[in-house]
C-alpha cells in the first residue's frame, strides 16, 4: 500500500484488523462492457483459468460477476453481508441491472419469487436466522417452479443466538424441494454458485438452487481459487424455454391460473397437490445429469476401497482431508467421500463408494447430525455408521477429533 492513500480498514466480527485483500488482477477491473457471453460448457470446462488467493465472499462475488445476474435482493446478516455488499459493488459497476436491500428475509425471498416469475435471473443470500425467517417462502419456490440461486452462509440458528458457524439450518433445507449443494471451500463456492444458475433454468429442472457454505471458515478465510477470465459471462436466462409460462402477461388470454391457489378440500385438489409434489421431486432427480457434467459428479472419492471411510460435506471435508493425510502418515489408509450435492442426494454413488467400508465416520458441524441420518437412510448395513465427531455453536473441528474416531475404530 502506498503512503498517503487512505484504505478502508477491514475487521473481523471480533474487531481484529484483517489485512487488505491482494489487488485484483487487472482484468477484474475492466467492467461489464468488455464481457462476452460464452457457452456454459466452455466457461466451466474449457476456458483457461487464473489462480488467485481470495476469501469465500470474494469467490462468490467473482462467480456473480460472471453469472449474468439481472437482479439481486438481500437483507444483511453476518456472515452473508460481506458477499452481498460486494454484489452491490458489482451492481454499481453495471454487472447487475437491479439490486436492493430488502426489508427482512420474508420480504426478500418473496421479492425473489416475484422477480423469478418475471423471467429474470435472480440471486439472494442469507444465513442462519435469516434462512429460518425466509423459510415459508423458500419452501414455496419449488412448487412455484422458480429458478433462482440462494447462497447460504451457515451460522447458528438456535438459542443462545450466535453469529458463529454451525450448519444445523441445512437440515431444514433438505426437505424444501430446492436443489442443495454444499461447498467445501472457496473454490467450490465459486464453482457451485456459478454453475447452479444454468442448472436451475434447464427446462427439465426449473427449480431454485441453494448453495451452502460454512460461515467464516470459508466466507471470511482465504483460499486458492481457479477462475476463468472476468471477460466471460453466462448466457442470459432464457425464460421461455422453461417448464412453466412466465408471469409477464405475454401469454394468450385465458382463465387459467399458473400458480395454484390454496387448495380446496376435495379429491381433485389432493390429486393436484400430490402430482405437484411428485413433479418437483422428479425435477430434483432430473438435475443429476447437469451436476455430473458441471460439478464432476455428486461426490468425490479419496482412497477408494479403504476399510474406514469418512463421509462429509462442507468445511468438514477440508478437516477430513487433513485427517486422512495424517492417518496416512501413521500408516493407515482412510477413505473419504465428499458429498457435493445434498439434493439430489447421491444415493447410488454413496452405496458404491462405501461398499467395502467396515466403518463409516461422519464428522459434522452441527449437533443434530443430519448428514449421518441421510447416510443411514440410504446405505445398507447401517451399523457401520459411526456418528460424529460433531462440533457446533462456532467450534472448529481439530483433525485430532477425527483421528480419535478413526483410531478408536481400528482398536475395536
Amino acid at each position, binding site marked *: 500500500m502506498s503512503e498517503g492513500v487512505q484504505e478502508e480498514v477491514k475487521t473481523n466480527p471480533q474487531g481484529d484488523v484483517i489485512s487488505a485483500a491482494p489487488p485484483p488482477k487487472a482484468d477484474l477491473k475492466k467492467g461489464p462492457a468488455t464481457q462476452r457471453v460464452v457457452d456454459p460448457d466452455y466457461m466451466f470446462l474449457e476456458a483457461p483459468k487464473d489462480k488467485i488467493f481470495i476469501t469465500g465472499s470474494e469467490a462468490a462475488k467473482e462467480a456473480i460477476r460472471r453469472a449474468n445476474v*439481472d*437482479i439481486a*435482493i438481500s437483507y444483511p446478516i453476518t456472515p452473508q453481508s460481506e458477499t452481498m455488499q460486494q454484489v452491490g459493488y458489482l451492481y454499481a459497476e453495471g454487472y447487475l*441491472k*437491479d439490486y*436492493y436491500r*430488502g*426489508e*427482512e428475509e*420474508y*420480504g*426478500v425471498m*418473496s*421479492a*425473489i*419469487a*416475484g*422477480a*423469478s*416469475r*418475471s*423471467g*429474470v435471473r*435472480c440471486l439472494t443470500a442469507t444465513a442462519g436466522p435469516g434462512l429460518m425467517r425466509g423459510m*415459508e*417462502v423458500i419452501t*414455496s419456490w419449488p412448487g*412455484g417452479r422458480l429458478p433462482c440461486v440462494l447462497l447460504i452462509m451457515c451460522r447458528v440458528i438456535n438459542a443462545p443466538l450466535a453469529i458463529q458457524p454451525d450448519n444445523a439450518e441445512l437440515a431444514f433445507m433438505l426437505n424444501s424441494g430446492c436443489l442443495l449443494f454444499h461447498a467445501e471451500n472457496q473454490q467450490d463456492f465459486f464453482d457451485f454458485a456459478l454453475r447452479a444458475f444454468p442448472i436451475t433454468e434447464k427446462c427439465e429442472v426449473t427449480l431454485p438452487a441453494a448453495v451452502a457454505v460454512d460461515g467464516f471458515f470459508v466466507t471470511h478465510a482465504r483460499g486458492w481459487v481457479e477462475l476463468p477470465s472476468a471477460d466471460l459471462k453466462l448466457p442470459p436466462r432464457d425464460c421461455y424455454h422453461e417448464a412453466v409460462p412466465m*408471469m*409477464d*402477461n*405475454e*401469454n*394468450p*388470454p*385465458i*382463465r387459467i*391460473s*399458473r*400458480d*395454484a*391457489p*390454496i387448495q380446496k378440500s376435495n379429491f381433485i385438489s389432493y390429486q393436484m397437490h400430490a402430482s405437484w409434489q411428485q413433479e418437483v421431486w422428479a425435477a430434483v432427480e432430473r438435475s443429476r445429469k447437469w451436476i455430473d457434467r458441471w460439478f464432476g459428479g455428486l461426490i468425490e472419492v479419496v482412497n477408494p476401497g479403504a476399510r474406514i471411510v469418512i463421509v462429509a460435506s462442507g468445511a468438514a471435508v477440508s478437516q477430513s482431508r487433513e485427517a486422512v493425510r495424517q492417518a496416512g502418515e501413521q500408516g493407515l489408509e482412510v477413505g473419504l467421500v465428499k458429498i457435493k450435492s445434498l439434493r439430489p442426494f447421491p444415493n447410488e454413488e454413496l452405496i458404491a463408494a462405501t461398499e467395502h467400508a467396515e466403518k463409516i465416520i461422519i464428522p459434522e458441524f452441527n449437533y443434530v447430525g443430519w448428514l449421518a441420518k441421510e447416510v443411514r437412510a440410504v446405505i445398507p448395513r447401517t451399523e457401520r455408521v459411526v456418528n460424529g465427531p460433531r462440533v457446533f455453536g462456532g467450534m472448529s473441528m481439530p483433525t485430532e477429533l477425527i483421528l480419535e474416531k478413526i483410531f478408536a475404530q481400528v482398536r475395536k
Partner: protein
Amino acid sequence: MSLETVKPSPALKNFLPKEYQDLVEDGPFKKERKVSEMGSFKEILEEHPMCAGCAMTLFIRISLIALPSPEHTVIIGTAGCGRLALSQAAIPFIYGNYGDTNAVASGLKRGLAIRFQDTPKDVVVMAGDGGLADIGFSAVMHSWFRKERFTTVMLDNEVYGNTGGQESGMTQRGMVLKMAPTGKKFEKMDMMGLAKTAGVAYIARLAPTNPTRVYNTIRKAVLIAREVGPTYVQAYTSCNIEYAIPTPKVMDDAREVEKDRYGFTEILTDEAKKYWDALEAERRAKIGGAKKEVTSQEA
C-alpha cells in the same frame, strides 16, 4: 400480450376454447371499455364462487374493467376472499404466501421493467385488509417507502371473511367478532395516514356506491403508479356474511358507511398531481381535437 406472441393457425381457431375466442374478439384487450358498456362485452372476470350479494365482487369486476392496459397487467393477491374471484380472471394472477403481496410485486415489477423496457407492464396488488394491514404490513410499508411503482388495492371488508369472521386491524373498535369475543380493543388502523407518511403518490378511499368513480379511481391509481410512484386505493367492500347484512341491503349499507365514515377521499403528491393534470390535459385535447375534426368534416 399475447395476441401477437401466440397466434393460432386460422385452421385451428374454431377448435380453441370459446373463452379464448371471445376474449380475443370481444374482450377488453387493446380496447378501452367503459363501465356503461358492462354486460355488452366479454369481461375479464365472469364466473366466480363469491357469496351472493358480495360488494367485493362488484368492486373487483369494475376494477378489472378499469385497468388501462389489461393486456399488460399482472395481478397479485394473497389468502382471502378476493383471490377466489381473481384466480378465475383472464389476467395472470400470482398467489404466493401469506402476506407477501407487496414484496412479490416489488420483485416482479422490477423484473418486468428489466425485460420490457419499451412496454409498461402494470402490477396491481389486490388483497384484503388482513393480508395488507396485518400479516403483510411490513411488506406494504416498505414497498411504499422504497417508492415501488405498483398499485396496492385494499379490499377492506373489516374482517377475516375467508377464515370465518375474525377481527382484523382494520375492524372498527368495539366490534364483537371471532378472536375479539369482548369487542375489538383498538381503533381501525389508519392506513391512509400511513400511506401519506410513506409518501405514496396517490391515495384514495372509496365505497363501491358509484361504479364510474371506482373505474376512474383505479385507472388513475394504475396510471400514476406506472410513471410516478406507489399508489394505494382503500375500498370498503363489506362482508355481508360476517356482518349479517341482508343481501338486498348490501348497497344500502355501503351508502350508509360511505356517508358515515368512508367518504370518497383523494390525496395526491405534487408530482402525481402535475403528472395527472398533464395527462388529463392531453386527453381533453385529444377529445377536443377529435370533436373539432368531426365538426370541420360536418362543415
